[in-house]
């Protein structure tokens, strides 16, 4: 048997989740490493191959945007897990709960009293110029005062070993089905480890999700549906998976109709009233009468029915204003303002190009910074200064000068690494962490996450559309 050899494994310059700087295994990974050393290279590779096959057979496939060939891909699952200790997790949990509570109060405020704007905590132009701010919602309060029912914030760990929130996803965070299915696959890959290690289970996510959705209405047995753009959407697997796991109907826009401001689905036995919609369609596409007129993904009149309180939309429309990367910079102040507390989970330091002194700094130091477009996601529209050419930097400087509101910049953070199977060896690869929070009666953080991993050597872009893969995330009870 060819034993696994970590002698050439690099830990310098980054925080490695498995080994410390002296290449001693960290306590969380002790049992795992013992197991790895027992199975050797060949077996590890064959376990990895079995995983790829399992994903295909489960149908965990997606179509990549801009890929005309309609090729189905799997999100590569690397079988070496990311392991998080209990203490670390409790800290994350507290930090996320605090953040989400404050953000929900913030959204309620900006669509109603706008105190945060009047008190000049955040410039009002910043809010009103955000493309995700929906004027149509002014004066509106959603059921139970909850806007962001489902959140999937992206966290990273820096070289200092501390967690930072990189961005918040309050619109339609995706990936939770991978958290759940990755776990199912890894249980088959390392059954004996799950027996020995006390890993917190994640399976009840879809139960809590259903309870959360039902808690938003007073109707006794509400009809809950998942609204998907359809099978061609990259996240379709997740939409159908969640519908199926929750026992909810999976609907497309064409299955819905609004009559007298009430939403119905078209069934084989006539129309059936719909009470709660977990929609995986962006705000802009939910109702062609109000938003994008060419949208075929939503339903005419849906927004009107929502405003009348006849149907609940999850997440509420208008929450995207928090995802704006310029608003992100104000979140420490937002938390302080609403909760009177210091932020538990820190932000990454952010330079707002719309502010003159910050802009000057960004332009002078662009080669050291990561520049991001405020309304983009998925790893698009960004410049990684240290890895860019002079020409690319100049292009971004021009873009920033042209439309400063549209850009922010952050120092380059060396994302932490986890050993990852690469060809015939194991090398460190950069990861981030996306835990999922559900806001119903209370804010619950599911003890697990999607760990995204940049599979290309040296890359720090973990997005699935840019060559990223995933890892299962084990949260230990001890």
């Amino acid at each position, binding site marked *: 048997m060819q034993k696994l050899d970590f002698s050439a494994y690099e830990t310098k310059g980054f925080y490695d989740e498995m080994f410390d700087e002296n290449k001693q295994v960290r306590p969380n990974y002790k049992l795992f490493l013992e197991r790895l050393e027992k199975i050797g290279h060949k077996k590890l590779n064959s376990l990895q191959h079995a995983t790829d096959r399992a994903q295909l*057979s*489960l149908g965990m496939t997606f179509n990549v945007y801009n890929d005309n060939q309609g090729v189905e891909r799997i999100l590569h699952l690397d079988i070496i897990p990311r392991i998080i200790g209990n203490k670390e997790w409790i800290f994350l949990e507290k930090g996320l709960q605090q953040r989400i509570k404050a953000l929900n109060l913030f959204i309620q405020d900006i669509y109603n009293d706008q105190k945060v704007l009047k008190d000049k905590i955040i410039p009002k132009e910043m809010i009103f110029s955000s493309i995700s701010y929906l004027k149509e919602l002014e004066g509106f309060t959603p059921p139970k005062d909850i806007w962001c029912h489902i959140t999937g914030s992206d966290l990273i760990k820096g070289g200092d070993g501390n967690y930072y929130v990189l961005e918040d996803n309050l619109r339609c965070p995706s990936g939770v089905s991978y958290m759940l299915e990755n776990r199912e696959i890894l249980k088959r890959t390392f059954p004996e480890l799950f027996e020995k290690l006390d890993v917190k289970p994640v399976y009840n996510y879809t139960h809590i999700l259903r309870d959360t959705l039902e808690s938003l209405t007073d109707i006794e047995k509400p009809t809950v549906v998942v609204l998907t753009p359809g*099978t061609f959407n990259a996240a*379709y697997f997740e939409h*159908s*998976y969640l519908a199926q796991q929750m026992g909810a109907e*999976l609907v497309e826009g064409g*299955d819905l109709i609004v009559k007298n401001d009430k939403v119905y689905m*078209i069934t*084989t036995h006539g129309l059936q009233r719909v009470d709660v919609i977990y929609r995986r369609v962006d705000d802009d596409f939910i109702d062609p009468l109000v938003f994008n007129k060419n949208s075929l993904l939503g339903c005419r009149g849906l927004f009107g029915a929502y405003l009348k309180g006849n149907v609940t939309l999850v997440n509420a429309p208008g929450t995207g204003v928090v995802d704006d990367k310029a608003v992100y910079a104000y979140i420490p102040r937002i938390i302080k303002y609403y909760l009177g507390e210091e932020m538990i989970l820190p932000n990454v330091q952010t330079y707002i190009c719309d502010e003159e002194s910050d802009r000057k700094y960004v332009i002078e130091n662009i080669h050291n910074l990561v520049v991001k477009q405020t309304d983009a996601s998925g790893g698009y529209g960004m410049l990684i200064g240290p890895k860019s050419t002079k020409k690319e930097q100049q292009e971004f400087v021009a873009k920033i000068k042209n439309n400063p509101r549209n850009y922010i910049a952050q120092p380059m953070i060396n994302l932490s690494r986890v050993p990852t199977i690469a060809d015939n060896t194991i090398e460190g690869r950069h990861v981030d962490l996306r835990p999922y929070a559900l806001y119903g009666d209370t804010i619950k953080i599911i003890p697990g996450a999607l760990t995204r991993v940049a599979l290309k050597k040296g890359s720090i872009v973990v997005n699935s559309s840019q060559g990223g893969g995933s890892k299962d995330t084990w949260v230990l009870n001890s």
Partner: protein
Amino acid sequence: MLGRVANTIYWMNRYLERAENYARFMDVNFNLSLELPPNETEQWKPLVAITGDWKLFQSLYSDLEKNKVIHFLTFDENNPNSICNCISNARENARAIRPEITKEVWEQINALYYMVKDGSEKKTFTDNNLRSFFSEIKKGCQLLYGMYDATMSRNEAWHFGKLGQAIERADKTSRVLDVKYHLLLGSPKDIGSSLDLIQWAALLKSVSAYDMYRKKYGKLTASDIAQFLILDTTFPRSILACLIRAERSLISLSGSSFGFNNLAQKQLGSLKSQLEYVAIEDIIKTGLHEYLDDIQQKLNSISTAIYDSFFSLENQVNS
């Protein structure tokens, strides 16, 4: 259940049944070709005729040749009914209605899809591995039928699926019988010869009816075969048995077992009664071809009526 979803599951089952039938036709024909004199290509033409895509075949291929027929019916992307297209449509439909079916059904349909996809990407096929390819497809589909029945509740989804399967199956049996019967009767010099027997046996095998037929009738005769494939009430692939199966599901979906609640029930009930009260002699007197042609048209019209009664948007919105 959503009208779109019902329609999708109905067609998912039709596509699977179609693919399984095609795979069986090919397998049987291969077997037959081994018994016939070498270079005999005439037997491949009826295969295309059975599928009803003769015109399409002519527009795509210059001449009739075994490998072209196999390619057309199995792999051709331009033939909407080729096995590859059927399996891929069935799988796409299954994906769209994933929450309606069980994990077992989904994973098997997915596995079947990858099996066929890998097969279609293979550059060369020998007769030998083609036959095992067809037999794998057949088995893959039959495994699905079993899982469908063994893991699904008898709910709307199940019934719409069974309805689709029964209608497709009745149609395919009628087409095989129609085409083969005439070819075989049309060559009087061979009647009673050993060649003739092989051909009649092949007809029965094309619809998996050989064993059950032999058990019931023993001897192969043209009218008994027609009787068995059209009017037998116990053999699951006879036209009448399919209609009985379809009617059971339709009754369950329409909520009425007396008379009819919708056009689909009315048309299906009439066709079933028609077959219940006809003797094979009457059919042969009318002309088997005319009779089967009429059945096929009525099946099409029933399928349209099912669409209008259950799936069509206008109908539901206005009701």
